[in-house]
């Protein structure tokens, strides 16, 4: 008796359960699987993930199939849970930025800004944040919207077999990541936006470099647009796939491009402006098809709008401070590049080590102990590329957060997977999930 026969026999015997006879198959030849006696109703439960290239990270889907039709799908999450919210309770308010930037790693400037806006709201210094810091925040957020949407389009295309879309999107994303590196020193996980302002000012050549990059990014969009918009293969795979109407979105708490694909122009940048978004000139693109193709069109249009906001930011950048004036909150040191990499600027070191004992004490207290934030709780939301990113922050009057909860849009939007996939084809499952664009780092935190 060969090993193959053993598998066959196990399969054919099955196991009697309360739900009928269950056959468990793992590996083996399809001919043998087929040869196993077919039950009265053919229900196949397939486990997809958590390690599967086309589920956007460590998402696990338990899919029940009837032939090619998905009858039930249940997402299972938690494979990337890192306890960031708990960790924040053991760091100072400033150190928290380093953690939240790692949540939704494709749109880290949004987590950073939402976190810092919440801290500033608790401190009551929202209006004291310098104009230059706010404009740079907006500029980085909008560049981040483009780089995040590019990943959504690129991986979405990849998952449907359109590899060219992936190459084009990542080519443009690389330009933007280079700009991040120029500004923050890092391509991802920046920790650049800090409570009260920014970690440091833009480097001298940043404005010129960003201006120079904008036309290149814009041409890059055109390539993606020419490739996919109206492309019959792309439309066949995405049109009328993953449909969720407005009622469904509101009930399930879905925000972002998915909500706007129902024709409802809900965008927190317009409806509840923060960071001075009411002073920028931009539009909220919508479609009324409520499907995957519509969400793709919205992302394309949003990238162009974001680019226009970036241009407006560059025009209004005036020299000035990038951190609040209150010395009890402002980070005492400015960073600079030295011979051994980035560190505190030499003038600052000279002052605290050579001339002023009080400056040294002040630096030491603020860096080790941090600043106190009056007790209370706030909710601060920003419009991330995926929808409403909300921060519920509680302070107990101390130097560390008492509780920080991130309402991540990916987490909430993933709940829509059963609603948009059940009854569809198994091949459309991947397209529909790609259209939600979940990032598991944000889902699990």
């Amino acid at each position, binding site marked *: 008796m060969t090993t193959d026969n053993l598998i066959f026999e196990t399969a054919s015997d099955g196991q009697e359960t309360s739900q009928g006879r269950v056959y468990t198959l793992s590996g083996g030849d399809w001919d043998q699987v087929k040869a196993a006696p077919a039950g009265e109703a053919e229900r196949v439960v397939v486990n997809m993930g958590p390690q599967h290239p086309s589920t956007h990270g460590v998402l696990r889907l338990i899919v029940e199939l009837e032939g090619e039709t998905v009858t039930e799908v249940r997402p299972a*999450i*938690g494979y990337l*849970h890192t*306890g960031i*919210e*708990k*960790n924040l*309770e*053991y*760091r100072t308010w400033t150190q928290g930025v380093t953690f939240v930037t790692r949540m939704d790693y494709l749109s880290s400037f949004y987590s950073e800004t939402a976190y810092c806006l919440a801290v500033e*709201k*608790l401190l*009551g210094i929202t209006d004291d944040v310098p104009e230059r810091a706010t404009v740079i925040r907006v500029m980085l957020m909008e560049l981040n919207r483009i780089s995040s949407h590019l990943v959504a389009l690129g991986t979405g295309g990849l998952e449907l077999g359109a590899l060219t879309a992936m190459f084009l999107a990542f080519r443009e994303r690389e330009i933007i990541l280079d700009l991040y590196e120029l500004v923050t020193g890092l391509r991802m996980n920046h920790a650049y936006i800090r409570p009260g302002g920014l970690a440091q000012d833009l480097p001298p050549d940043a404005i010129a470099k960003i201006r120079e990059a904008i036309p290149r990014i814009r041409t890059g969009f055109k390539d993606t647009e020419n490739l996919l918009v109206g492309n019959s293969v792309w439309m066949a795979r995405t049109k009328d796939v993953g449909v969720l109407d407005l009622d469904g979105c*509101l*009930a*399930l*708490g*879905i925000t972002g491009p998915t909500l706007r694909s129902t024709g*409802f122009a*809900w965008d927190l940048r317009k*409806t*509840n402006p923060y960071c001075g978004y009411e002073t920028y000139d931009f539009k909220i693109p919508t479609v009324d098809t409520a499907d995957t193709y519509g969400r793709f069109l919205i992302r394309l249009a949003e990238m162009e709008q974001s680019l226009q906001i970036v241009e407006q930011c560059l025009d209004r950048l005036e020299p000035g401070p990038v951190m609040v004036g209150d010395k009890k909150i402002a980070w005492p040191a400015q960073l600079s590049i030295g011979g051994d990499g980035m560190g505190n600027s030499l003038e600052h070191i000279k002052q605290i080590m050579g001339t002023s004992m009080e400056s040294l004490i002040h630096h030491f207290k603020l860096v*080790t*102990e*941090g600043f*106190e934030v009056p*007790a*209370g*709780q*706030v*909710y601060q*939301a920003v419009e991330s590329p995926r929808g*409403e990113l*909300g921060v*519920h922050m*509680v302070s*107990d*009057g*101390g*130097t*560390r957060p*008492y*509780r920080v*909860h991130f*309402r991540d849009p990916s*987490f*909430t939007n*993933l*709940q829509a997977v059963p609603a948009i996939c059940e009854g569809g084809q198994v091949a459309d499952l991947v397209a529909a999930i790609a259209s939600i664009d979940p990032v598991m780092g944000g889902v*699990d*935190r």
Partner: protein
Amino acid sequence: MTETNNPLIPQGATELPLVDIREGSFGVRGSGDTSGFGGLVRRIYLPPAANRPLPGWFEDVVSVFEQALAAKEFKSADVIERVVIDRNELTINVNRQFIKIAMQILRDEPRLKFEMSMGVSGVHYPAQTDAELHAVYHIRSMTHNRQIRVETTAPDVDPHIPSTVDVYPTNNWHERETYDFFGVIFDGHPGLTRIEMPDDWVGHPQRKDYPLGGVPVEYKGATIPAPDQRRMYSR
């Protein structure tokens, strides 16, 4: 209440939500403290209840909510425990027995229309006896472009709060998350299982009595203790 130096707390106010009682300073314990700072006692409170009438549209929301409760023959004094305005945000503290009907009214009443829930966030306040566990709901009205917070509490010994999934289906995963992290049991939830932690995990990690964990790290000869073993300046 003479110990408090919190200017937010009105004279003669009672039953304020306590966060913590702190003794000493700089987190130093057991040393030969001769400075006198070791004798400091500070009580930390959350912001107090607001006086009526409330400013702006907050008064509209609360009074319409009260009228709607009365129309359904609920006494608003039973349902609403406190109304807080802090940092220009409205918080309605609701008794947990009535959380579902309160959410139903807030969603359906045409003058309120909080159609969308932004989920549930748990907070653990060990110092608040018989109200240790808080469930905080942020709800948003797109019709009126308003956003409020509804908060309810449960004692640690009876951590039950009625589920709001029937009213806001989006709260399904959020309630599972709050159960997972805080041990709040949402009665009537369609499938209250852990969502982030493994199914066989023991304990609820976001509670304040659950340690962060971690190991000391040695770097260039010096040992840095695990994050939850380092000195805390807050208490």
